[in-house]
């Protein structure tokens, strides 16, 4: 049966819009109060400090007003959300033990293929808790820890306690305090000194219950001289009412280490995606965020890098695609708090069918951050006269010995380009597609192969019927 929801999307036709019947061992009630938070903590059998941390965060969440800048968040009813769901009682260790219906979902998402081809270890999060976890022996030998954050809290309480909330404190913003109060799942990655993890670590997240929020919490620690590439990808089925995704990601990149964090976000177009992602880079460390936003109703996400010691580097690559009813408000922040730090930000946004896409960012140079360099480039492509592009870069420069540049362009696909391609026998649709692919190419080429393929496929899907 073809049911068209308010956004005008036919779920039957949405490729990744399948969903399994709900089958839960336990289902919490909607809404958020002290009791729910205490229950989450006791269900997880957490240490006392985490329970106190959650309650402190809840208090802050309740006092803090919604941000008044950016998109309108007033439509989110925080009392109409499930803050915790537990899919199965027990943790699964091997693939064979994963319940069949969950496996089916992953099958459709292509996880088994990724597993066979690529994975070093994958924590796949289904609902609010990780149910599947696989860590290759070789990494265990190297001392790499890759767990869901709940398990990490049980198995490595000291490391978690040392770093948890140090990069994104619960008072940082309203959504970060919400996550700090009700977080569940997410990934914990610990890379020991000097260890290079050659194959990307990947995790897939899904939302699968109506009106359900997902509040994963990711913590990555790169000891000196180490390297890791973490890949977060999400697709989600379609539902008719809004759901909320509000994650917190904290990354610590120590001296000489390098961390790359890649996200391809394809939440269904009724999801609010409000995420706080932040990294601290120490001496000569490099932090790279690669951030693709295709899905969601509204995304507000500004991956940040605080460069706190000399020689730290930051790179942020951001692609946003906004179609009908979508508002993509991604961006990035680079904070130069030490001498000789460098940052590069490249943003490409595409708006189509009345969508709104853009870039919101900050370059901050503190006094004394001598010899720092920052280059920001934002390009926007608007595909029709109903769509909108916004660019809000902010540069705060408190040091003279610096070099800061910002450039932005907004353009359309020129008729000449289209005509040229079509004169070579390429159909209108395909020509448009090629131009858009060319536009995002500088970022797509930074993705692992299968993600590059997936992103190109998703853009092709979005572009269907855009000419003629």
């Amino acid at each position, binding site marked *: 049966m073809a049911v068209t929801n308010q956004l005008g999307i036919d779920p039957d036709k949405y490729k990744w819009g399948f969903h399994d019947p709900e089958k839960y061992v336990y289902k919490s009630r909607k809404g958020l109060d002290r009791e729910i938070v205490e229950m989450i903590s006791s269900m997880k059998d957490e240490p006392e400090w985490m329970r106190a941390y959650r309650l402190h965060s809840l208090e802050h969440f309740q006092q803090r007003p919604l941000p008044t800048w950016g998109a309108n968040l007033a439509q989110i009813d925080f009392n109409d959300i499930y803050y915790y769901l537990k899919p199965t009682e027990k943790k699964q260790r091997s693939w064979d033990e994963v319940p069949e219906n969950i496996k089916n979902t992953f099958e459709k998402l292509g996880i088994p293929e990724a597993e066979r081809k690529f994975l070093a270890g994958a924590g796949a999060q289904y609902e609010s808790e990780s149910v599947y976890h696989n860590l290759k022996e070789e990494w265990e030998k190297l001392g790499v820890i890759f767990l869901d954050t709940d398990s990490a809290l049980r198995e490595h309480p000291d490391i978690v306690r040392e770093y948890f909330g140090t990069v994104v404190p619960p008072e940082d913003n309203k959504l970060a305090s919400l996550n700090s109060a009700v977080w569940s799942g997410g990934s914990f990655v610990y890379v020991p000194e000097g260890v290079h993890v050659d194959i990307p670590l990947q995790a897939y997240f899904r939302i699968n219950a109506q009106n359900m929020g997902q509040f994963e919490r990711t913590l990555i620690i790169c000891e000196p001289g180490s390297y890791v590439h973490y890949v977060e990808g999400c697709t989600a089925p379609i539902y008719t009412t809004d759901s909320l995704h509000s994650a917190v990601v904290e990354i610590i990149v120590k001296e000489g280490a390098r961390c790359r964090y890649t996200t391809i976000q394809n939440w269904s177009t009724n999801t609010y995606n409000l995420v706080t992602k932040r990294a601290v880079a120490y001496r000569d460390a490099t932090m790279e965020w690669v951030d693709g936003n295709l899905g969601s109703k509204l995304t507000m996400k500004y991956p940040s890098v605080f460069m706190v010691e000399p020689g730290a580097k930051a790179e942020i690559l951001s692609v946003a695609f906004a179609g009908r009813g979508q508002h993509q408000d991604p961006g990035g922040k680079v904070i130069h708090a030490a001498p000789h730090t460098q940052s590069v930000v490249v943003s490409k946004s595409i708006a189509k069918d009345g969508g709104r896409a853009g870039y919101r960012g900050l370059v901050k140079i503190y006094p004394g951050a001598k010899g720092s360099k920052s280059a920001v480039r934002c390009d926007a492509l608007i*595909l029709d*006269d109903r769509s909108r592009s916004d660019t809000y870069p902010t540069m705060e420069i408190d040091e003279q010995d610096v070099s800061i540049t910002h450039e932005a362009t907004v353009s359309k696909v020129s008729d000449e380009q289209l005509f040229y391609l079509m004169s070579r026998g390429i159909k209108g649709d395909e020509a448009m597609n090629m131009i858009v692919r060319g536009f995002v190419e500088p970022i797509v080429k930074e993705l692992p192969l299968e993600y590059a393929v997936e992103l190109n496929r998703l853009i092709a899907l979005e572009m269907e019927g855009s000419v003629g």
Partner: protein
Amino acid sequence: MSEQIGQMARAGELTRDAVLALSARHAEPAWMRAFRLAAWEAFERLPWPAASDEEWRRTDPGVFRLEGARPGGEASGGALPADLQRAAAAWEAPAGLLVQRNSLTVRASLDGDLARRGIVFTDLHTALREHPDLLRQHFMTACVKPEETKFRALHAALWTGGAVLYIPEGVEVTRPLVSLTWIDADGLDIFPHTLVIAGRGSTATLITAAVSPPGELPVFSDSVAEVMLADGAQVRLVTLQEWGRNVVEVGIIRSILARDTTLRSLLVGLGGRVVKTNVESVLDGSGATSEMLGLVFGDDRQHFDLHTVQEHRAMHTLSDLLYKNAVKDRARSIFSGLIRVHYGAQKTNAFQANRNLILSEGAKADSIPNLEIMANDLRCTHGSATSRLNEEHLFYLMSRGLTREQAMQMVVEGFFAELLDRVPLEHLRSRLQREIEQKMVA
């Protein structure tokens, strides 16, 4: 009665009575008195800007508190001070010259031929008596409105002095008209207003200069400039801000451009202690072109907060903005610019460039170039670059025998030259070059 109210006002409070007294002192028509009172009520109703408002995040609104304030318009008898006479004489053969001291007109001249052709160039009080319909139609009705902000409401309630320039349809004025505002009374609040009405196909150049000698007590200036260009009009507007360091100012310069108009504007910010200025161009008719240039040079602890808007509401419009800010010592400059292209404003070209030069340790330059684009068939770019003096350039110049100071001066001159080369007013250019040199030495 009115004498009594006048004395209360002079005693130094901003009250409804002070508004009434001001209106009575100038024997204003009832509609203007009602207008001032309505604006006063809006002022009382509107909230103070909060430091958390996006527009006020970088300038403390507390700087503009009006405690013990005195609205201007007082006669300061005797001959004009020598400095003011020099400042007034500095302009070579203007087509018209309007000089105001502490918001009172002390000199007004206009080329007789221009007067015969219907040009009006006078202060607002005179215009209100001689051309009431002109003011009733255009004064804070369509361009800048009192209820927009607390400061604009206050301005509407308490304006004094001001300058009106009306150019009838088809009239071309080749030589510049100059309006000079001079403050030498300490602790004054002034509300200078500039109203430019350029008729169809008319051409004119207006230079407004705000000057004050060094003073002790704080002076607060709340200024508004409204510039309206009818179809085909061409206007050049130079806003020269050379206040003493005791002046804090909040102001707006807004222009509305009808079909096929051209506005070339230059804002120069050199003086004042804390200055927050909005410069906005509304491109309302197709074929409109707005050139927006800005030159800011801050030293000591000066604070310049500049907000620009390029608002494209019609097709085939062009805006081209270049702001160059240099900061020295512990000065701070903020450039925040917005290009907004509305739905349907196709075939638009919008350019925005901000270049900042930081000359000393401790100086700061923020740049916030924003775009909101709702049309797809357009060309729109913005660029921002912030850097310090290039040591290589300095070294090269010094190797040719210049001292470091001379070399720095030359580089700074070069930094601003790109702007000044676009302003074909030779006299103004050399004046600005001199002032930039003085800043470098200071």
